């Protein structure tokens, strides 16, 4: 393994910050959105240009400045970060297209502000993916929290204000109240915050302190929506749908989970976690969230809220996978970052498209909609298959590895949790799809004049659904990245 010095990671992070002045100064919407696309494309190309290097087993490193002795603002591109960055950067382009259709279609106000903060949020996401140490990760994590506030509260009404308050209270409260002290304690104990393949805490603290730190980190990254710090996610669904789609299926929540995965593997290290027997605790925390969130999702009528709770549950799959501490479990968990992102963003896109075409938000009002919007609901069907974990979708692969992981770790309880939650997600997704396509006679709610949403809102979900299917037959690129990441952390 070689370490290559290159400024590329920094540029990849900054490219969407640099485009902000252009977005602000552009008076013409077409030009403005052109710049957004340009930035998204440049970002994706930069990320992809680093991909071969990573696949060859190397790492790219860039140090910006040293803020605190021993802890610099530093980027490191490794397999896991690359995986996340690829997902986020490619979905940004698709979401940008969807945003244009959605925001113009609904004639939303303050569109410039919307695109500006969207770009900032993407910068922060890539920044988290490429962080080489805890401080850099924390920096971009906070930047993401702040950049998404104007997006969540886009409508600027009473409901948005309440949601915004809840969002900031949960996210900033936990990151300042829990992550910051935990990070400082780590620094105090070891004098470094640099992620290492087997963590840097080993030998620096006893089991009690390590346990406290672990709890602080898992709950502190509230973006991962581990219960009981999940309340912000359903509330944040007041945001426009493209925001919910990218941020609350991909960027924000995945950043939370990604941070936790980084902490577990890069700060504690799987060996230390195994030695202290923390795997079971992590899995137990994740399992509670998985089951409870799935049960709550069953009872939701608002489609976006249901998706939100489904997300809460699915995110904990990733934590559970890593918590199993077995190579297959970790593989499953990391793969699920990508698979879930493509599946869930499809579902959110569909929810938005339905809202655009019909103005409906509730599941009970969507009976028979499949006949009128076949493409949208077809994509929805594929997306839900992926989330449930059925072939032929990418979700099956990650779930397969998760199940193998539980067997490998000999944790039958968590096997039951996984299977049970798959059944539950089938139980809340399938009726929606079934009733959309096969309404009971005479109950169909839509007349002939209702049709598909504009092309810019329909194409994106179809594309992401297609990718979900492709990932089942050809998971190679992501799979290689994940197996490299797993090898790197010493899980064979």
């Amino acid at each position, binding site marked *: 393994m070689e370490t290559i010095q290159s400024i590329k990671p920094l540029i990849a992070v900054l490219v969407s910050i640099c485009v902000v002045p252009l977005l602000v100064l552009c008076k013409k919407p077409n030009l403005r959105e052109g710049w957004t696309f340009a930035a998204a494309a440049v970002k994706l190309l930069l990320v992809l240009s680093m991909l071969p290097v990573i696949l060859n087993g190397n790492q790219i490193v860039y140090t910006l400045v040293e803020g605190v*002795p021993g802890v610099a603002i530093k980027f490191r591109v490794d397999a896991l970060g690359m995986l996340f960055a690829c997902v986020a950067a490619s979905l940004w382009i698709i979401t940008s297209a969807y945003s244009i259709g959605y925001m113009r279609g609904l004639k939303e106000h303050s569109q410039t502000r919307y695109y500006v903060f969207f770009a900032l949020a993407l910068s922060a996401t890539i920044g988290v993916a490429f962080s080489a140490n805890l401080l850099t990760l924390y920096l971009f994590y906070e*930047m993401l929290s702040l950049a998404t506030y104007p997006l969540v509260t886009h409508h*600027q009404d009473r409901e948005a204000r309440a949601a915004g308050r809840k969002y900031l209270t949960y996210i900033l409260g936990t990151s*300042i109240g829990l992550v910051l*002290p935990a990070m400082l304690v780590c620094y105090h104990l070891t004098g470094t915050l640099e992620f290492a393949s087997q963590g840097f805490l080993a030998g620096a603290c006893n089991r009690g302190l390590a346990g406290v730190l672990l709890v602080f980190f898992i709950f502190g990254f509230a973006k991962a929506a581990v219960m009981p710090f999940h309340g912000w996610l359903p509330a944040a669904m007041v945001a426009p749908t493209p925001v919910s789609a990218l941020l609350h299926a991909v960027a924000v929540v995945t950043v939370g989970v990604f941070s936790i995965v980084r902490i577990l593997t890069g700060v504690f290290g799987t060996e230390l976690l195994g030695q202290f027997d923390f795997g079971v605790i992590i899995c137990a925390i994740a399992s509670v969230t998985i089951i409870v969130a799935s049960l709550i999702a069953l009872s939701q009528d608002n489609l976006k809220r249901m998706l939100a709770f489904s997300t809460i549950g699915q995110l904990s799959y990733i934590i559970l996978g890593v918590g199993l501490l077995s190579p297959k479990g970790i593989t499953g968990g990391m793969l699920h970052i990508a698979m879930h992102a493509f599946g869930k963003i499809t579902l959110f896109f569909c929810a938005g498209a339905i809202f655009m075409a019909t103005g409906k938000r509730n599941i009970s009002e969507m009976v028979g909609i499949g006949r009128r919007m076949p493409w949208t609901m077809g994509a929805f069907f594929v997306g839900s298959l992926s989330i449930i974990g059925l072939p032929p979708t990418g979700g099956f692969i990650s779930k397969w590895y998760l199940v193998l992981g539980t067997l490998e770790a000999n944790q039958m309880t968590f096997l039951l949790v996984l299977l049970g939650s798959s059944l539950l997600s089938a139980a809340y997704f399938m009726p929606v799809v079934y009733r959309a396509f096969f309404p009971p006679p005479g109950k169909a709610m839509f007349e002939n004049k209702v049709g598909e949403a504009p092309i810019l809102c329909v194409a994106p979900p179809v594309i992401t659904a297609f990718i979900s299917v492709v990932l089942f037959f050809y998971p190679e690129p992501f799979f290689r990245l994940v197996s490299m990441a797993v090898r790197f952390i010493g899980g064979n």
Partner: protein
Amino acid sequence: MTNHYPALIVVLPLLFAFVVSGVAWVKKSLCFPLTIVGMGLSAGLSVCLLGRVATTGLVEYRMGGWETPWGIGYHVDYLNALVVTVVTVLAFINLIATRKNVVEETPEKAGAFYSLYLLFIVGLTGIVLTGDLFNLYVLLEVASLTSYALIGMGNGRAPMSALNYLFVGTVGGCFYLLGVGYLYIMTGSLNMVDVATLLPQMYHSSAVVMAFIFCLVGVGIKMAFFPLHMWLPNAYGFAPTAVGSLIAPLMTKVMVYVLIRLILTVFSVDFAFVILKMGDPMVWLSSLAIVAGAVFALAQKNLKRMFCYIIVSEIGYMMGGAWLGNNTGMTGAILHIFNDAIMTLCLFLCAGSIYYRVRGLELDRLKGLFSKMPVTMACLVAGALSIIGVPPTCGFFSKWYLISGGLEAGQYGFVAALLFSSLVNVVLFFRVIEISYYGDFEDHHGHGSSGEAVMEAPASMLVPLLIVSIGLIVVGLYTGGIVNHLINPLLLKQGFLG
């Protein structure tokens, strides 16, 4: 010429102060440019001095060529150089940014205002540069007197607040003078370095202990250290805009500098921490200050008064850091002098430009300001993030050092207080941001406003404000450089405890 830098930094503003007050009789419009020249020269020389100190480590200067300890000596090391640069540069920026406020609020007193402004800087730079304890007292009173007068220039409750500040401040100055008297009785010298060499044989004398305590109380009153902070919110809150944004960032920070100077140079670290054992109680008192300041700030309905209580809280940060008794904490305290001055200036300048347009700083009058004054509000957000301590703003890094120092010293109460105040700051600032982000803007006519529609502040205010807020991030990113090149060598030289 270059050898006279330290003296010129102090003397030039003094000279210009007299010129300005004289010119004011002839032509009022000349006052501002003259002040700019005086301040600019002083600021430029400070930067040069900082550059020289960074390479040579120490610049000595003897006033009038008299040998120390008989004459007054300036003894410029990393600490003075850093603080004097902050003082002059920020005062210079503030001067430019608040010009329109001055024209509006104290129209016919421009001459008096600008000469007092310069005299205040004479006081502060003198305090920072001097190496003589009594000289420090005199300059302390110069700075204080001018600040009383400047605050008293305001309307409404300002004169009464200034008078109260004067009572309290004078008592503080007298306590400091008394402490210096004790030191003089014991050592027969007033030169800081000289006193420091003579003191070690007398560390256990109760007179020296009393001298230290008197100085501590005196300086504590002047810096508004809880529970001696009562005068601050009124004095800074009711002061004219330009005065608030001048005094609030600088005066309290310079007083913290004086305390650190007394601990490091005059009484020595051994005396303060090992012999007096004052570390623990002072850190607890600081934690109390942090929490109390934060809680009081929550109760405020006026933006500027909220900032004033935040200052009380921030003083607790610096005092606590200085008293932690380890390298990291002291680094944090010194860094925070620097950072807090910039953050406070940023916040007060924002308040200044909002006041200039809206004519009020009550929180409910800020409705919808984000769409009316986007740049000002963006700068306010930058300042807020720095106060909260969000990376990469500079406030995060000094807080980082302070908390690390607290952990090193095992002062968990202090760590908890710092985290608590960060959380309270989130609430404080997001309340402001929320009010100004949502809601329809209400025009308040009939409050003496000329009825013009609220719009973005003029460029003469925005440009300095933008520079300050970008400075927040730049300074944050270069924290490593500041610590490695300026603070670490200083603490190394002072033989600070590991």
